[in-house]
C-alpha cells in the first residue's frame, strides 16, 4: 500500500513530465511593473503586466522593501485594485520613503523576477478628476460671461493642506477642434469672457498636485450662451459707416477734380513739334516718308559762314515787285530769297543765326514757316492759315539757312534771336499778346545804300550788343536789311516781334552804339508799323516816302526813321518813334503818297491790338489818297507789301 501510495507522486510526475514534453511548458516569462499611482498621497497601488505564463498556471507575488531596511514584505492586498495589482493602504504607506518593489511570477517550472522599481509615494500622486463642475452664465456690463466652478476630488485632502492641488480647465465651442486652456491655480472658480453669442460651449477641468501627475479631464459640461449683441460689433459698425462716408466724399471730390488730378498724375504727353513731322505718315507706318519729310536739305550748313554771320542782324525787306510773287507762292518766295541771295560771297548770310534755335526772326519762308508753325497756336487767323499753307511747302523745304542763304547783302539786319527768346518761347509768349509776329506779313526792306561789309560787321557787333542789352527784356528790334537793288527779288523779311515790355532806352542805346543809327543809314529803309491785324500782328510798313519802291529803285531818303521803337503801351501797342529826317526822293506821285503815308503813319503810328479796321481806317482818315493806297497797301504807296492785306 505504501508503495502504491509512494508511487503515485512518481506516476504523477511522470505523467506531468510526459505532458510537459508534449505541450512544451516553460517557466513563466518576466513580469513587468507598469505603474504605481497614489490618488491622494495616502495610499497607492501598483500594477504589473504578466509575461508569458509558459502554459502553466502562474502565480504572481509582489515584494517590497522600504528604504534603508532589509526587511522584505509582501503585498498586503492583491484584490482591491483589481487583477495584477497591489494595493497599499494607509497603514502600509509611508511618504517620502523609497519603496523597492519587485514582482515575481511563479509556475510549476520556475519563477521569474521582474526588474525592481523604486517608488516614492510623493512623486506618484495622480489625483482623481475634480468633481461637481458647474458652469453658469453671468451677466456683465460688457456682456455675458461664463463662471466655471468645481470641487477637488473627494479623496484628496486639500483642506488640511496635506495635498495642494492646482487646477486647469479648457473650453471650446461646439464644432471646433482646438481647446482653449486656462490655468486656474489653486482657486476653484474661473471666469471666461468674450463669448460668441448663441454659441454652445464645452468645459472640462483637471487638477494636479504641485509634484505629481495631471488627473484625467472631467466629464464635459455643456453650456449655451444666450444671444446678445456685442458692443464691439456696434463700434465696428460705426467705424465702418464712418469710413464709408469719408470714402464716398473722397470719391466725389476726386470726381469733381478729376481733370486736375489727371493732369497731376498723368501729365499730357507733348506731341511732336518737329517741323515737317507728320503724324499721319507715322501712323501709316511709312517711316521713310516721315523722316524724309524732316530732312532739310542743306543742313548742316555747307557754305562757309563767318562768325560774324552769326551775329548779323538782318532786316529783310523785299521790293514790291517781288512781293506779289513771293507772297503768292511760297516757293517763289523761297526762290526769290534764294535769288536775292545770289551773291556767292555771302559773308552776311547770317546763317548761323538762322540756324540757331533761338532765332525768332523770319527769313523768307523759313522764318515764316517757323513762325507759322510756332504761331499756330497763338495766331489762328484765316490769313495766317492761308499764308501758312502757302508758305509751308516752302518752309518744309527750306531751312533757315535757305532763307538766309539768299544773302541779301551784308547789310542785312536781322532781329537777333536771342533777344527775343527761343522759338518755342517765342511762339508762346509774344504771340499771345503783342502780336509779335504776323505770320502773314513779311516786310522786306531793301536797302540799297548799305555798304555791306562795314555795316555787316557793324551790325553784327551791334546786334550782339543789342542782344546783351536786350536779354531778358523784351525788346523790339527792328533790323534793317539791305537788299541789293540789283536783287529785286530779294525778299527780305522783316519780322517784328514785340513783347510787352519794351526797353526803348536800350534800344536807343543799341542803335546809337551800333551805329545802326538811323542817320547813318541814310539808305536804309524803315519800317513803320502800319497796323495791327486782328491777330495782334504788327503790320509793318516801310516808312519813308522815298522808299516807295515800287520800281525797285528807290532811293531812300529816309525822311522818317521809324525804326525806333518807342515802347509798348498798356494797350499792347507798339509805339514806334519816328525820327524825322526828311530826305525825300522825288517821286512825286509816290512821294506824295508816301508823304501822305508818312503823315498818315505819323499820326497813326500807334499800333494797337484793336481791330485791324481801326488801323486800316487810319490811312483813309488821314488822307484820301491813302485809301486806295491802303487797299493795295504797301504795294501801291511805298512799294511795300502788306502781306496782311494780301491775305485779306
Amino acid at each position, binding site marked *: 500500500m505504501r508503495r502504491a501510495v509512494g508511487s503515485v507522486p512518481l506516476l504523477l510526475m511522470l505523467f506531468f513530465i510526459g505532458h510537459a514534453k508534449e505541450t512544451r511548458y516553460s517557466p513563466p516569462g518576466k513580469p513587468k511593473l507598469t505603474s504605481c499611482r497614489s490618488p491622494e*498621497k*495616502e495610499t497607492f497601488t501598483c500594477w504589473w503586466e504578466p509575461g508569458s505564463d509558459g502554459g502553466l498556471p502562474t502565480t504572481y507575488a509582489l515584494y517590497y522593501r522600504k*528604504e*534603508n531596511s532589509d526587511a522584505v514584505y509582501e503585498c498586503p492586498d492583491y484584490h482591491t485594485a483589481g487583477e495584477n495589482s497591489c494595493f497599499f493602504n*494607509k*497603514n502600509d*504607506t*509611508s*511618504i*517620502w*520613503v*523609497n519603496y*523597492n518593489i519587485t514582482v515575481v511570477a511563479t509556475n510549476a517550472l520556475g519563477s521569474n523576477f521582474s526588474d525592481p522599481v*523604486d517608488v*516614492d509615494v*510623493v512623486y506618484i500622486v495622480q489625483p482623481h478628476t475634480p468633481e461637481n463642475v458647474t458652469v453658469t452664465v453671468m451677466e456683465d456690463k460688457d456682456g455675458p460671461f461664463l463662471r466655471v466652478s468645481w470641487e477637488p476630488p473627494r479623496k484628496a*485632502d486639500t*483642506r*488640511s*493642506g*496635506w495635498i*495642494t492641488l492646482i487646477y486647469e480647465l479648457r473650453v471650446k465651442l461646439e464644432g471646433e477642434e482646438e481647446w482653449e486652456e486656462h490655468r486656474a491655480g489653486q482657486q476653484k472658480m474661473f471666469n471666461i469672457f468674450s463669448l460668441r453669442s448663441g454659441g454652445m460651449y464645452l468645459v472640462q477641468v483637471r487638477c494636479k498636485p*504641485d*509634484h505629481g501627475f495631471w488627473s484625467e479631464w472631467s466629464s464635459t459640461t455643456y453650456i449655451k450662451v444666450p444671444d446678445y449683441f456685442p458692443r464691439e460689433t456696434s463700434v465696428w459698425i460705426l467705424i465702418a459707416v464712418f469710413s464709408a462716408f469719408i470714402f464716398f466724399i473722397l470719391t466725389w471730390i476726386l470726381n469733381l477734380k478729376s481733370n486736375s488730378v489727371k493732369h497731376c498724375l498723368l501729365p499730357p504727353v507733348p506731341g511732336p513739334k518737329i517741323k515737317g513731322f507728320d503724324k499721319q505718315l507715322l501712323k501709316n507706318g511709312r517711316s521713310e516718308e516721315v523722316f524724309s519729310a524732316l530732312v532739310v536739305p542743306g543742313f548742316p550748313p555747307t557754305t562757309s559762314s563767318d562768325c560774324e554771320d552769326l551775329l548779323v542782324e538782318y532786316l529783310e525787306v523785299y521790293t514790291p515787285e517781288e512781293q506779289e510773287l513771293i507772297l503768292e507762292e511760297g516757293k517763289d518766295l523761297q526762290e526769290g530769297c534764294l535769288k536775292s541771295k545770289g551773291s556767292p560771297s555771302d559773308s552776311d548770310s547770317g546763317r548761323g543765326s538762322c540756324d540757331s534755335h533761338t532765332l525768332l526772326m523770319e527769313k523768307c519762308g523759313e522764318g515764316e514757316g517757323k513762325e507759322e508753325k510756332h504761331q499756330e497756336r497763338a495766331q489762328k487767323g484765316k490769313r495766317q492759315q492761308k499764308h501758312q499753307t502757302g508758305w509751308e511747302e516752302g518752309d518744309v523745304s527750306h531751312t533757315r539757312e535757305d532763307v538766309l542763304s539768299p544773302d541779301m547783302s551784308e547789310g542785312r539786319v536781322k532781329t537777333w534771336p536771342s533777344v527775343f527768346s527761343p522759338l518755342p518761347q517765342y511762339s508762346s509768349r509774344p504771340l499771345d499778346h503783342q502780336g509779335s509776329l504776323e505770320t502773314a506779313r513779311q516786310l522786306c526792306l531793301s536797302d540799297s545804300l548799305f555798304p555791306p561789309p562795314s555795316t555787316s560787321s557793324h551790325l553784327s557787333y551791334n546786334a550782339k550788343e543789342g542782344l546783351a542789352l536786350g536779354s531778358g527784356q523784351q525788346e523790339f528790334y527792328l533790323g534793317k536789311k539791305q537788299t541789293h537793288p540789283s536783287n529785286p527779288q530779294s525778299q527780305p523779311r522783316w519780322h517784328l516781334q514785340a513783347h510787352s515790355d519794351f526797353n526803348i532806352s536800350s534800344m536807343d542805346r543799341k542803335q546809337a552804339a551800333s551805329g545802326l543809327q538811323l542817320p547813318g543809314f541814310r539808305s536804309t529803309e524803315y519800317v513803320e508799323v502800319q497796323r495791327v491785324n486782328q491777330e495782334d500782328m504788327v503790320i509793318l510798313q516801310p516808312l519813308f516816302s522815298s522808299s516807295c519802291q515800287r520800281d525797285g529803285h528807290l532811293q531812300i531818303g529816309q525822311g522818317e526813321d521809324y525804326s525806333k521803337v518807342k515802347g509798348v503801351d498798356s494797350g499792347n501797342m507798339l509805339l514806334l518813334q519816328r525820327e524825322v529826317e526828311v530826305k525825300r526822293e522825288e517821286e512825286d506821285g509816290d512821294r506824295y503818297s508816301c508823304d501822305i503815308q508818312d503823315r498818315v503813319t505819323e499820326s497813326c503810328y500807334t499800333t494797337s491790338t484793336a481791330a485791324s479796321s481801326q488801323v486800316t481806317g487810319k490811312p483813309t482818315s488821314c488822307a484820301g489818297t491813302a485809301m486806295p493806297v491802303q487797299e493795295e497797301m504797301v504795294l501801291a504807296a511805298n512799294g511795300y507789301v502788306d502781306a496782311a492785306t494780301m491775305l485779306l
Partner: protein
Amino acid sequence: MHIYKKIKKLLQGGVWALLLWPCLLTVSHPLDCKEEQGSISRCPTISQEKLLDRVIQHAEVIYRVSEESCTLFEEMFVPFPMRLQRNQAGYTCITKALPIPSSKSEIQQISDTWLLHSVLMLVQSWIEPLVYLQTTLDRYDDAPDLLLNKTKWVSEKLVSLEQGVVVLMKKMLDEGMLTTAYNEHGLVQYDVQPEMLESVLRDYMLLSCFKKDAHKMETFLKLLKCRQTDKYNCALY
C-alpha cells in the same frame, strides 16, 4: 557674446523675480528682531497668522526651486540609466536619522510643537550641505549659471526660513530659540576628490534628498496652518 550673456543674466533675473516675488514680502520685514531689555522693540510686530503664511510661502518657493535645480542637474550630468534609482550604493539622505514622521497618520498624531520642531530640524540640517554643494558644483566645468544661482539662492533662503521658523516657534510655543544642535549630523567631508561619476551621483542624491525634505517642510507647515485655523476639521481624517 558679452551682450548675450548680459541678456541672459537679465532674463534669469526676471525669472527669479517672478518666482521669488513672495520673498519680497518676507525680506522687507526681518523675522528675527532682537529685543533689548528695557528698550522698545524697533521691529514691526507681525501677527502669527501672517508670519505663518509667509513662512509657508517661503517653504513653497524653496521646494519649487529645489525641484527645478534637481531637474537641471539631472538633465545636465546624470546619465539616463541612473536617473530614477534612489538608492545608490547604500546612499542615504543625511536627514534619515532625524526623527521625522513619514506617514500621514503619524503626522496627524504628533503635536504642533513637534511639527515645528521637525521643520526646524530639517532646515537647520540642510544649511551646511547646501553650501557644500555650491563648492562642488563650481568644480564642474559646464555647470549652467542657472543651476549655480538657484542653489545659491536656496541656501540663502533657507537661512531666512530658519529665522522665520524660530520666530514662529517663539510666538506659538513660547519657547526660546533652540540651538542648532542638529547640524552635527552634518556631512561627511571628503578630503580626497572623488571620481567624477561618483561626485555626480552623490550630488544628485543630495539634491534629491533636499528636494524631498523641502517638500516635507512645506507639508508640515501647511498642516500646521490648518491646525491653527481649524483644529477640528484638520485633525479629523
